């Protein structure tokens, strides 16, 4: 931890990220975080709604094909999130909402992996629906926790 703290305080990249007023520094990393999240959460929410019984005329199995794109969006969000965390390690770790947000994110990702397999097998059992409902809760929770982290400091 100490090493991580020292590294982020002295690394040229993180100093630039913290101190630069360039549009290519912090605002761009923040944008990548959001665009990845909006895409990943958005596609997940629609798939969850389908599994919960909406748009029944839409076949379920081919939806699994979207997951490669969904994972790209997720990694974009995760990587930019780690960069923002490291850029201001102490303040962000001190934010009481971070563990809650991470709980929602980990839940959402585990559910994504579970749901992908169920989609591919066209499995719309009651358990699948429960997982889809939990997935919705996790995405809404992650977005809300992120906003509350930013505005309640």
């Amino acid at each position: 931890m100490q090493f991580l703290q020292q590294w982020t305080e002295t690394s040229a990249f993180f100093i630039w990220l913290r101190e630069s007023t360039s549009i290519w520094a912090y605002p761009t990393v923040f944008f990548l975080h959001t665009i990845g999240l909006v895409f990943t959460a958005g596609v997940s929410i629609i798939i969850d709604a389908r599994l919960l019984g909406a748009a029944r005329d839409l076949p379920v199995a081919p939806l699994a094909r979207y997951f490669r794109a969904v994972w790209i969006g997720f990694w974009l969000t995760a990587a930019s999130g780690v960069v923002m965390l490291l850029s201001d390690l102490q303040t962000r770790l001190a934010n009481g909402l971070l563990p809650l947000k991470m709980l929602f994110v980990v839940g959402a990702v585990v559910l994504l992996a579970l749901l992908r397999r169920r989609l591919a097998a066209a499995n719309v059992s009651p358990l699948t629906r429960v997982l889809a409902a939990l997935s919705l809760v996790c995405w809404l929770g992650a977005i809300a926790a992120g906003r509350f982290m930013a505005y309640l400091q």
Partner: protein
Amino acid sequence: MSAWVLPIWKTIHYVAISVVVGVVALVDLRIFGIAKQLPLRPLQRLMRWAIAAFLVAAVSGYVLMRMNPANSVMPLNAAFAAKLVCLLLIGLNDVLYIATGLKRDVDGVAAGESAPVSARIVAGVSLVLWVGVVYWSWMLSFLAGAI
């Protein structure tokens, strides 16, 4: 004003935009050839959800603008103007998509079939413009000194 009001409206705004972008991404990526086993008619019918979510995003966006007009319209923030231009172009793109009958043709694209090149162009323009909407939203906060 309670400290909770702003993050609550922001959450509503974000979730609504996520739903819009989710539907747009599913339709546009299918037109590009991803998940080709999906017939396009039921997929395009999801655009009704996107329209409903867009209305929620517009109302919550208006509330956010009124809460803090200095960030967007007083004085006019260039990034906010760019965001509105992207939204206008999205509207135009969609109107043309429907008015030219292209949407009806795409509705007929069955499972396993490819969408026409003209539809791919419309889908590409739509995706780029939606990324633009989110991009200018962040630059809006940057120009306003909020991030």
